[in-house]
């Protein structure tokens, strides 16, 4: 049985929330409406009223920060004329130099989607708190937007690299579970093919940066459609997904998941509990190493060395003796491993 976790959806300012406390929401459900601002226009104020630019503040009936509707009075002279808002917008500034008002017209209404399934627990200033009954995986990093889609495993083994050629039209709208890394080319292709998100064990910082730079340039050039998120589970570099976790993903292929790239977070619905991690490993535990030269490798903690011992770096540390899955036996700082625990406690 999965315990529900609380998820906070950050709402851009100006969002009018339509979801009510207690309501059940779906990942693609509209939870609010928002009108963004467009490039501002200057509305002449003093000239139509035959006044000097320096007198603008005395004439205004609105102030910077106000939201106005079309045809709403912006300024008036008693017994004289009135200046009406040409469009609905946000008042940004009044200029005493040229007697104009800077007004940012409101764009068409956009739907705000939560990308999660659950029950609305609270509506707060700037956020919505949702109770999400799903398996929750917190990664070590990520990138991109909130997305949701069906889980698909994209590589045969957890240590395999996700190749661009492995992504086809069948992955459109899906969240793809990759392996130990994906190049910038693969990520770019995935986005172009309409993949919603990718879950990776590791990624090279350089590849991720290159991908983000490509996306930024495309955004600036316009024409970028659809959201895309990346979740990083283990670390940076070429790092495979823990085989236990990978096996869990395999058994949950086809389930709907929500991925929050910037938060490094994944929810999988209608799922069995995830294998968990425990920071302090004990003798007999299955462990995973997090630092080089064993980063991402799994093994069993077979013993603890007495007293402090220097790691290769010279830092004195409590050392664990780990029998790695490739048969090697190596001392590893206890702080650099985590126990991986199956839900049944195995």
């Amino acid at each position, binding site marked *: 049985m999965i315990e529900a976790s609380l998820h906070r959806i950050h709402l851009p300012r100006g969002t009018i929330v339509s979801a009510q406390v207690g309501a059940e929401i779906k990942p693609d459900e509209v939870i609010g409406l928002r009108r963004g601002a467009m490039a501002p226009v200057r509305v002449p104020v003093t000239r139509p009223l035959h006044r000097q630019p320096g007198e603008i503040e005395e004439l205004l009936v609105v102030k910077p920060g106000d939201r106005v509707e079309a045809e709403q009075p912006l300024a008036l002279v008693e017994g004289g004329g009135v200046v009406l808002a040409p469009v609905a917008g946000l008042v940004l500034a009044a200029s005493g*130099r040229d007697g104009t008002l800077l007004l940012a017209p409101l764009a068409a209404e956009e739907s705000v989607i939560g990308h999660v399934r659950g029950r609305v627990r609270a509506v707060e200033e700037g956020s919505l708190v949702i109770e999400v009954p799903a398996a929750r995986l917190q990664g070590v990093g990520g990138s991109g937007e909130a997305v949701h889609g069906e889980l698909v495993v994209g590589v045969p083994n957890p240590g395999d690299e996700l190749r661009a050629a492995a992504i086809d039209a069948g992955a459109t709208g899906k969240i793809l579970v990759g392996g130990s890394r994906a190049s910038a080319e693969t990520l770019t292709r995935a986005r172009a093919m309409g993949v919603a998100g990718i879950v990776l064990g590791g990624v090279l910082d350089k590849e991720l940066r290159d991908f983000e730079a490509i996306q930024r340039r495309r955004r600036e050039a316009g024409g970028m459609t659809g959201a895309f998120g990346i979740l990083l589970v283990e670390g940076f570099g070429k790092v495979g997904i823990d085989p236990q976790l990978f096996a869990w993903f395999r058994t949950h292929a086809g389930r709907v998941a929500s991925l929050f790239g910037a938060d490094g977070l994944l929810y999988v619905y209608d799922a069995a509990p995830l294998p968990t991690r425990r920071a302090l490993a004990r003798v007999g535990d299955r462990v995973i190493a997090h630092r080089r030269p064993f980063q991402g490798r799994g093994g069993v903690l077979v013993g603890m060395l007495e007293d402090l011992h220097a790691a290769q770096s010279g830092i004195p540390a409590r050392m664990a003796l780990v029998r790695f899955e490739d048969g090697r036996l190596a001392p590893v700082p206890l702080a650099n491993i985590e126990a991986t625990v199956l839900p049944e406690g195995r």
Partner: protein
Amino acid sequence: MTTQAPAREQGRATAELSLLVDIGSAWTKAAVVGRALGRWRIVAHAAQPSAWDEDELIATLAGRLAGAADARVSRRIAALLADAPRIAVHTPARPGRIALGAVSSELSGQAARRAAEAAGWVVVEAVTVDDGRPVVERLSALQSAEVDAWLIAGGFDEEGGEGALEVAGLVAAARGGGRSPVVWAGSAGLTERVAAFFEPGVLRTVANPRPSADRENLLPLRRYLDGLIERLVERGAARQLAPIGFVRAVAELARASRLRVVGVDLGARYATWASADENGMAESRVVALGGLAAPMLTAPGGPQRIARTLPVAIDELAVADALQNLRARPGSIPQTEEELAVVHGAARHLLAELAANGPQPRGIDLLIGSGRTIGSAPLPAQAMQLLLDGIRPVGIVQVAIDPAGALGPLGALRDDEIVEGLGTLRDDLLTPLGAAVVCRGGRTGHLSMRVTVHRVGWRSLGPIEVRPGQLEVVPLPRGQVAELEIELDPGVSLGAPRRTRRLHASVSGGAVGVVLDARDAPLILPRRSDDRRAVLSAWRDTFQREVRPPAEGAA
């Protein structure tokens, strides 16, 4: 903080113990204070990832004490430690987030940002009239920011300024109502007009940090933001915050010792710079994202800058991955020499940033390094090099580290208790690394300084000649005092303006000795990568090689 010791059981041997605990975002440091031979001492200390449970920490401390404790209590030492009174500080659970709107990025924007960051705020979005973005983009950026408060700055006090009103209007439009406070730190003449943009009671006015083009006045804004973060983010527990405790302890240490003290605490998330004069007047800078997980390290260009300062050849891509892993798993430790080199490179860079923007005293008598990377460096010489390379404290300075991380918890005591605590633990609190003579300038082909070390009861060493770009390490063990006779080249400075090129100074030794450092400030490195690495590895080797005395002079 006052704590009660548990009642003693009748007729059963017990021990007077207390714990100083600093719960960091990545590592928890604990020191056991106990009576040894009638004196209060730090009798054991340990650190572990904060994700581990407390029982483990107690067991580790008990293990360290097991061999040394009285046989009557040694079997119950874990229970005694678990019940011992403790003074604890912690890293703030989360930093305060602020959005900044300013007129110019170089003047008002920079001043306001520095004041906010010094108070521990993270500026999550900053817009300025001259940032090159269209107005709609600025508005959208502010609307998307998740913040606890808003800060508006701009306009000189005498002149007012349309730009400041424009940016205040933009913030008002982006904020769109709500409870989040808005701080106006701009032109005094515009206060009423800016206040009219917001609901009554929302705007708080603070003195302009940039009242004129040639004057900066950050302190009032900094102090106001200090209080605001306490009210909004960490209600009512400021003294138990590690950065605040650290600053208070440094201030009291300066007052008690009548020295000008600079303390730097480099953690996983926070970096704290505390500078205090002989009267205990402290200035500080608390940077919420200034620790080893700082985003600036992994931002574009960051890994390249770090890679350039490494004495070993590690390519930029590997440096970038190592830095990201450091950020992703701050509770782990560098396992390989390459990883340690990257971590130390990052630490030097962060210390340099902290020093460049931190309040600067008129010379430093004592420089203290704290935080796991510095305090637990594998070799004392590495800690010394981190501090000297990063901070470049020009002058004659004693250098020490806080290996147990005890300064923060001591700073959580009441003012009078801090002094008492510092006095009681004076021999154990800091580990002296030695002294350093750091000079600025130098002329190619000339000596930077010629130093003779006169040691009490020993033959004098030197004169030791140090050329520009060089450094020498002279042995001077802990507890030993030496008189330095320094002859400076006319092109070289020790910070303060001096008429004479000859001066004398008294220094005391430590785990490293006396470092004569003529590498200039800031450090100047060759452009070619091979030459640069050769210079950097030579400096590293000079610090780390077993120190041998140079030619001995007359007694």
